[in-house]
Structure formats: C-alpha cells, structure tokens
C-alpha cells in the first residue's frame, strides 16, 4: 500500500510539473475549451427555445464540464503510452518492479487530480459567463463525481491496452472525443440503455444534483447500484484487457516500438 502511495505521489507531482512546464500548451487548452463553451452557449441562445434557455444553459454547463473531464481521463493513458513510446521513456516505466498497470493508475489519478482544478475553473467561468448558478453541494457532487471518474478510468485502460500494441492512435482518440461528447450530452431519459455505457449514469445523477437540487438521499438504491456497478465493471474490464494487451506486446516485442 505504501509502495503505491509513493508511486501515486510522484505521478501526481509529475503531471502537475508537466502542466506547468508546458504552460503555453495548458493555457491554450483551457482557452480553447472556454471558447468551445462560448460557442455552445451562444448557439442555444440563437437556435434554442427562449422559454427553456435557462434550463438548457444549465444542462450545457454540466454536460460540457463532463465532456472535458471525460476527454481528459479517457484519452490520458492512450496518449501517455503513445507519447512515452515516442520519447523513449515507456520502457523505463515497464522496468519498475511495480506493475505497469499500477503506475498507469497512478498516472491517470494524477492527471484527474490536476485537471479537477481546471474543471473547477471552467465551471465557474461558464457559470459567470452565463449568469446561471448551479447547485454545487459538495456532499452530493463529490462522491458521485468520484464514482463517475472510476468508470472513465476503466475505459482509459481499454484505450491504453489498444495503444500499447498500436502506438499511433491519434486518429482513434479524435473519434473518441465525439463518442465521449455523445455520452456526456445525451440524457438517460432519451436513451435509457446508455445506463450500461461508461459514466452516463454518473453524469445523469450529477445533473439531478446540480440542476434539480437533489441530495444523496433523493436517489434510489438502484441508482447507486447502477453507478457503482458501472464503475467496477469498466475498471475490471479495462485492467484485464490492458494486461492482456501488455502480454501480447511483450510476446511480439512491441512495447517500446512507435
């Protein structure tokens, strides 16, 4: 346990340092995301029903924040593996006596932790821009958000598994952005079967809290089973798939290849 705590500590620090050292990149990413939000916001002002503008804006804010979180989390490990293979540092990660999947778990956790600050900034920036203030009850939001992130991490491991074999996955990551967008924006009331898709249930529950003022006691046991089950299932599938791909890569000698 202490070993993983040490791995986690250095990976959180490394993710922070890279965001700081590539400051221009980080800043342009934040600005791009903010401009995308402005586009969405002004879009619904023009084409949306004026009677529903307030509600639609609130929906847009929540969906947009989850879209950003989903993109950052789901793409993170695939991007890490692809980039580290290109830099020449990937094999060093596999030379550690700590299993690579644990190091990647620490890496994605570090990424989520650091990006949460950006998300909070974007959330407040978007609320300030629109003048629509959401219910930010941390007692309800934080546990749901963390469980939602668990299923995102699971999918991130699936992407990591693919990228450990096929390193050039940039085109796939771009397509993934639109799939994540669909999951973040489509409500469960429209497509109930999406409850089985990663993080959709979590986004739905967060909407209930932030827009409709739900508290944790307002959800049913079935809601929690779906949320927790979704997280466990995707993490289990993700880690098993990743480790299988890792074994294939080691047999075929693909680990350090780009």
């Amino acid at each position, binding site marked *: 346990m202490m070993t993983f705590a040490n791995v986690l500590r250095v990976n959180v620090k490394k993710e922070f340092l890279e965001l700081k*050292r590539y400051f221009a990149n980080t800043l342009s990413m934040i600005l791009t995301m903010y401009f995308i939000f402005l586009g969405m916001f002004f879009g619904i002002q023009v084409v949306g029903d004026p009677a529903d503008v307030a509600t639609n804006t609130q929906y847009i804010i929540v969906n947009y924040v989850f879209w950003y979180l989903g993109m950052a989390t789901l793409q993170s490990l695939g991007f890490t593996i692809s980039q580290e293979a290109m830099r020449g540092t990937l*094999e060093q990660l596999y030379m550690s006596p700590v299993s690579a999947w644990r190091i990647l778990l620490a890496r994605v956790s570090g990424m989520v932790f650091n990006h949460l600050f950006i998300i909070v900034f974007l959330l407040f920036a978007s609320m300030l821009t629109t003048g629509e203030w959401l219910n930010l009850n941390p007692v309800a939001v934080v546990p749901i958000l963390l469980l939602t992130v668990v299923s995102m991490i699971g999918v991130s491991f699936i992407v990591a598994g693919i990228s450990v074999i096929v390193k050039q996955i940039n085109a796939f990551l771009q397509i993934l952005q639109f799939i994540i967008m669909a999951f973040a924006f489509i409500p469960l009331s429209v497509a109930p079967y999406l409850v089985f898709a990663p993080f959709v249930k979590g986004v739905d529950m967060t909407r209930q809290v932030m827009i409709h003022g739900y508290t944790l006691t307002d959800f049913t046991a079935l809601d929690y089973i779906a949320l927790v089950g979704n997280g466990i299932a995707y993490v289990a599938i993700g880690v098993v798939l990743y480790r299988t791909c890792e074994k294939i890569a080691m047999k075929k000698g693909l680990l350090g290849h780009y």
Partner: protein
Amino acid sequence: MESIIEVNGIRKVYKKRKSKEAFVAVDGISFQVGKGEIMGLLGPNGAGKTTTIKSICGLLVPNEGSISIHGYDSVNDRNKALRHISAVLEGNRNIYWRLTVFENLEYFAGNRGMSKKEILPYIEELLDMFHLQDKRNEVVNNLSRGMQQKLAICVAMMAGTDVILLDEPTLGLDVETGYEVREILKRIAFEEQKTIIISTHDMDVVQDLCNRTVIINQGKVIANEQVSKLLNLFKTSAYKIHLKESLTEEQVKHLEHKFPIHEWEGQILNVNLDHEEAIYDLMDILKMNRTSIETINQTEVNFEEVFMKLVKEEAVS
C-alpha cells in the same frame, strides 16, 4: 564466481507483418554473468543484442529458453527479478526532458515504490558522484548530451539494483565525457560491486571496461571469453610479414585457400595462424616462388580487430 544472471538457450522468433515470414532474432543464446563483473555484449547490427538485452530486462518474452536474475525467472517472477535490475536502454531519451535533474531522479525512484525519505539522501550521493550537483535544478532539455547521458545512468543507479544494463552508454559523447562516463562505470563496478552488462559498438569501451565479452552474430553466441584472453589469442596468432618481393597469383591463390583471414598489401602480408603448425604451411607457400622474407612480427591487436576477425571468421564458416 557467483552467477547473478543466467541466460539459458533463449530463442526469439518474430513474424514479419506483411509476409508473415518467420525471422529468428536470437537462436539458443546462453551465458552467465557473475557478481561484480562488467560484461560486454557485442555484435554487428541485427545480431540480436537488443533482443537479448530486452529479454533480460523482462520487456520481451522469449519463445524458448529462460533467463533468471538472482534466481528469479524474468517472465514468471518478473516483478521480483526487476527489483535487482535497472537499465539505460535509449540513452538520454530515457529521461524526461521537461523535468529537472532532481525531479527525474525523484520520479523514477518513486515509481519503483521508494519513499521520499529513502530517496533524498541517495539523490545527494549520486549527484555528487556524477558531478551533477550544480545542475540539480536545471531542466534536462537545457543540458548537454553528455550531461543527459550521465543523468540517464544516474537514474538507473538510483534504483539501487545490483545489476545495471547499459545499451550504448557512450554513443554520441565527446572524448572527454566518454572518458568521464567510463571512469564512473569503473567506479560503480569496482567500488559498489555492481554487475554491469554493456551493449556497445565502441570497442575502446570494451577493452577499457569489460572483464568478459559475449559476441553474438546472426542470433548465436560466437565467442564468450575474457577480453584479455581474446586479445592474447589473437596476438599470438596474428603476424605481419614484410616480403622482399610481391607475391605471385599462384601464391595468393594458395594463401586464400589455406588462410581465409589474411590481408595483403604490396609486400606486406597480414595473416592469422589458427594453429602453431600453420607457420610451416605459410613458409611452403612463400618457398614456392622463393619469396624472401624481410621481417616477421607478431601483430599488436586491439579489440576492434579481434571483434572484426571473429565476426568475419563466423561469416566465412
């Protein structure tokens, strides 16, 4: 000498992507490496050095054979084996260029599960040893190639393992930094009793640092011998003969038949005698045309020549 690494008959076959044709990268390679030994792993490009190194590191699973490090199988007990081994596989590309010297050392040690308390005193020790103390807060991107290479070795040392694998540790370094890196490696091996495997094309490094060398060619071990013994072996069998007149075509033909490894330039003949009696065969050929000999000298060989001769002999056979 106690064996730390045992490579037993490893074979690795890759399938080419398009043709699905099998390509044998290493074919039944075996050798042992003892505690505190510096072993050179040599071979021409495509000989199978990288496959062997990566298999020892547990980054590649061989199709056949096994590798044990401190008794732990590199595939089945991979994590336990990796507690005893660290490597510099891609030189200065093995480190993060946007992190500082200190941050790199801290990151890679932490990634091995080491606590901050364990790491800090060791970082100071290594920064002193590698003369990087004044660069500790410098971003790697701003360092010279030599400094980056030293840091990559330092990162491998930071793991505190008793086995270190180095792939081309002096590649691209200037003479001064190359010398400094060699001195550091000598110190690590002798003072800290580390076992070091060096894969390199720099024969000066081998001659200067290695106790023993394993030479591989076309996936097979063609020599596994002490460096000093190989040098002696080739010293006693290599001769430079100054002739008074040039050789005839017939003599050259006979020489080519009897001594496949020879060079002939005007009136100077360089020849390798693979057994003591071969000198009489050589004399017979020279006598054919009553060619007079001016001098016969035993040739001083360096390791580069030894290597070239071994690889050529293997190619001929």
